């Protein structure tokens, strides 16, 4: 059945209910996330607050409702998460980490508030420089990769978030981009994919991180497109969804990591987009909004944004176009990076 022209369920015209993108419930769901302070879960997930805000805000942008969260409150909250060293923690009082730092920059860019960072930002050099210096100091100058924080765990995800944040601030020249590219190349495997570090198994999440980093560095030419495209296209399973590694279960979040990777190497047409679209739509909670990892499961904002972003890559008509490298609205990336 084709999603666009299918006859739908007996007795109805247009699409069956479960295959319609429910915009308003998703918006309400995301808006409700910060008002759940009477739930223990709210407090147990504080370590993801800033990432969560980025996920929620991106989802709202894609849903065409960029103003659904109060702008000034958003900016104030983001700035309240900055540590004296220039990095951002997940919430006020949490230690700085590259993942939340990148989220902070992405949020500030989306609400067009980099000038507020310029005025109020902390860290060495203050403003944009304060946070950029924090990021740049996390690059391992011997190998090119990045640590996540002062404690030194290295992972290609951090390399990507580092380049992502710096490029949005137009301060890429603070790090050794060529060395970072060489490091990514050393993570390549025989299947064309990439892992956490040299020798590590290919994983769709890491592949996205490595390709997006290469894309920011404008070095996608080093990718073995054919091999990787084949491996990635085999992530699609009969149910239509995508998995992260061979012979694992499908999961909505891989709709983003796999489909964005395929997009970056120009092979998105190697999977069945209409089946993937159906799979993502079936993972919605049509009443209360939000998207889950698989049909019938609990929704969360993480799967909501990556489900929507996946749908956007597949050209869903009701969604803003997403940028495959940054997972932000394409229009905003064009505004910032020209």
């Amino acid at each position, binding site marked *: 059945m084709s999603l666009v022209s299918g006859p739908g369920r007996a007795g109805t015209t247009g699409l069956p209910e479960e295959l319609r993108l429910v915009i308003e419930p998703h918006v309400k769901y995301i808006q409700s996330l910060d008002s759940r302070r*009477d*739930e*223990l879960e709210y*407090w*147990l*997930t*504080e*370590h*993801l607050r800033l990432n969560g805000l980025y996920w929620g805000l991106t989802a709202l942008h894609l849903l065409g409702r960029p103003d659904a969260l109060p702008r000034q409150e958003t900016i104030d909250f983001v700035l309240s998460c900055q540590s004296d060293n220039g990095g951002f923690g*997940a919430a006020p*009082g*949490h*230690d700085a*980490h590259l993942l939340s730092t990148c989220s902070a920059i992405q949020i500030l860019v989306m609400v067009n508030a980099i000038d507020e960072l310029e005025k109020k930002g902390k860290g060495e050099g203050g403003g944009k420089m304060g946070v950029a210096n924090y990021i740049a100091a996390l690059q*391992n100058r*011997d190998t090119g990769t990045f*640590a996540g*924080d*002062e*404690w*030194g*765990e*290295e992972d290609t995800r951090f390399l990507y978030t580092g380049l992502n944040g710096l490029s949005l601030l137009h301060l890429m020249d603070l790090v050794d981009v060529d060395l970072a590219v060489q490091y990514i190349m050393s993570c390549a*495997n*025989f*299947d064309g994919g990439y*892992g*956490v*570090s040299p*020798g*590590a*198994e290919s*994983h769709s999440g890491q592949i996205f991180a490595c390709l997006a980093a290469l894309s920011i560095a404008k070095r996608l030419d080093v990718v073995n497109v054919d091999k990787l*495209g084949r491996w990635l*296209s*085999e992530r*699609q399973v*009969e149910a239509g969804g995508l998995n992260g*590694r*061979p*012979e*694992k279960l499908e*999961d909505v*979040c891989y709709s983003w990591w796999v489909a964005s990777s395929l997009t970056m190497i120009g092979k998105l*047409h*190697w*999977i*069945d987009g209409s089946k993937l679209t159906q799979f993502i739509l079936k993972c919605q*909670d049509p009443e*209360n909004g939000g998207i*889950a*990892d*698989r049909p*019938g*499961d*609990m*929704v*969360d*904002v*993480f799967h909501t944004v990556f489900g929507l972003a996946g749908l956007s890559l597949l050209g869903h008509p009701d969604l803003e176009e997403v940028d495959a490298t940054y997972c932000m609205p394409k229009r905003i990336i064009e505004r910032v990076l020209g």
Partner: protein
Amino acid sequence: MASHGVARPAISVVRTDEQLHEEQQRIQEYRDLEELIRAKIAEEQYTVEVLDLTSKLLKENPEYYTIWNVRRRLLIYGLFSKSSDSSSPSKASQNTSPTDTTQTSSIPSSASTSTIPADSNTIQHDPISQTRGKTGTTLDLISADLEFLFPIMMKFPKCYWLWNYRLWLLHQANERLDWQIARGLWTRELVLVGKMLVKDSRNFHGWGYRRTVVAQLESQKLHGSSMVESEFEYTTKVIHGDKGLSNFSAWHRRSKLIPKLLEERQADDPTRRQFLDDEFDLIIAAMYTDSYPYAQSAWFYYQFLMTTLTDPVGHATITPNFTSEERIEFLVRQLEVLKDMLDGAEDCKWIYDALIEYTLCLSRMEERQLQIDEKDDCSQWLTELRKLDTLRSGRWVDLELDLRGNNIPGV
């Protein structure tokens, strides 16, 4: 916030007043505990009591990375240095700034400075007995912490911070303890990760952790030597175990070990040739005996072996000195194997996919156009692919264009 595999209740559950009250109480307790830890740390109370408070919180919420960091600071600024009767905490904290750890924990090297204040400038005791006295208690702290982590890791095997913190502890052992003792700890880790991989043979963190542990056990610092042979054997064992054929993690690890293995064996050309033969036999026998040739992991490994024949970058991994005649000879033989495999597995798209790819490779390696019968075969295999695998029909369109580039009329 990112939940996996948690079922959504059919009707949204409305909490009773009692449940609401109970939840508020739990929130209050949690937040009070958090506040208490922060207050103690602000006062620099780096004590066992505060360590216990963090244990309590982390058992409930192992994702709270800032509290893991608090725990690290408790150890390096407080407990490690207090563990010896005569050491000075300030000295230890000077030497073990977090930035210091960045370099030493990620790249364990000889450059990492010992943080045990055993130098004679500040301490007049016999440096050896001093170190020994200290070893006992620092080891106790590290061992206790490793043990504390274990049940939490079994409960949350995908939590990054746990694996991360565990490695940090072990690197602390490298820096602070005699190498024999540190080595003992890492050796136990290999057993532990082995157990975790039995529980979940595909755990991504588990396989990554295994690589790190092995690299440590091989390192000069811990007076180690290569474990390539035993690790290679381990992959063989996993592959032959339950669901082994579809264990992509194990196949991947194997592919990475092979070049080193052959180098260490100082394999000559005939040995390498035999090795490649044996690997082909292994993968093909596996395809025939297990779930038949439908497991994609096995096919990716097959692809890896084939790159040693077809891809200049892959040549070096097994048979660097193969002549192009030898590569062609192996390739021709594999094409025959694949055609035989079709018998009884006509619905296995992987075989058709491989047949087309390697038929094209063969013509390239022989620097010629496809022959008429090869063109017919390819066009027939492509038709099967389109029938069997509709999800990837876009790929088959592109493949058809590739074949057209090879002048296959009518495909």
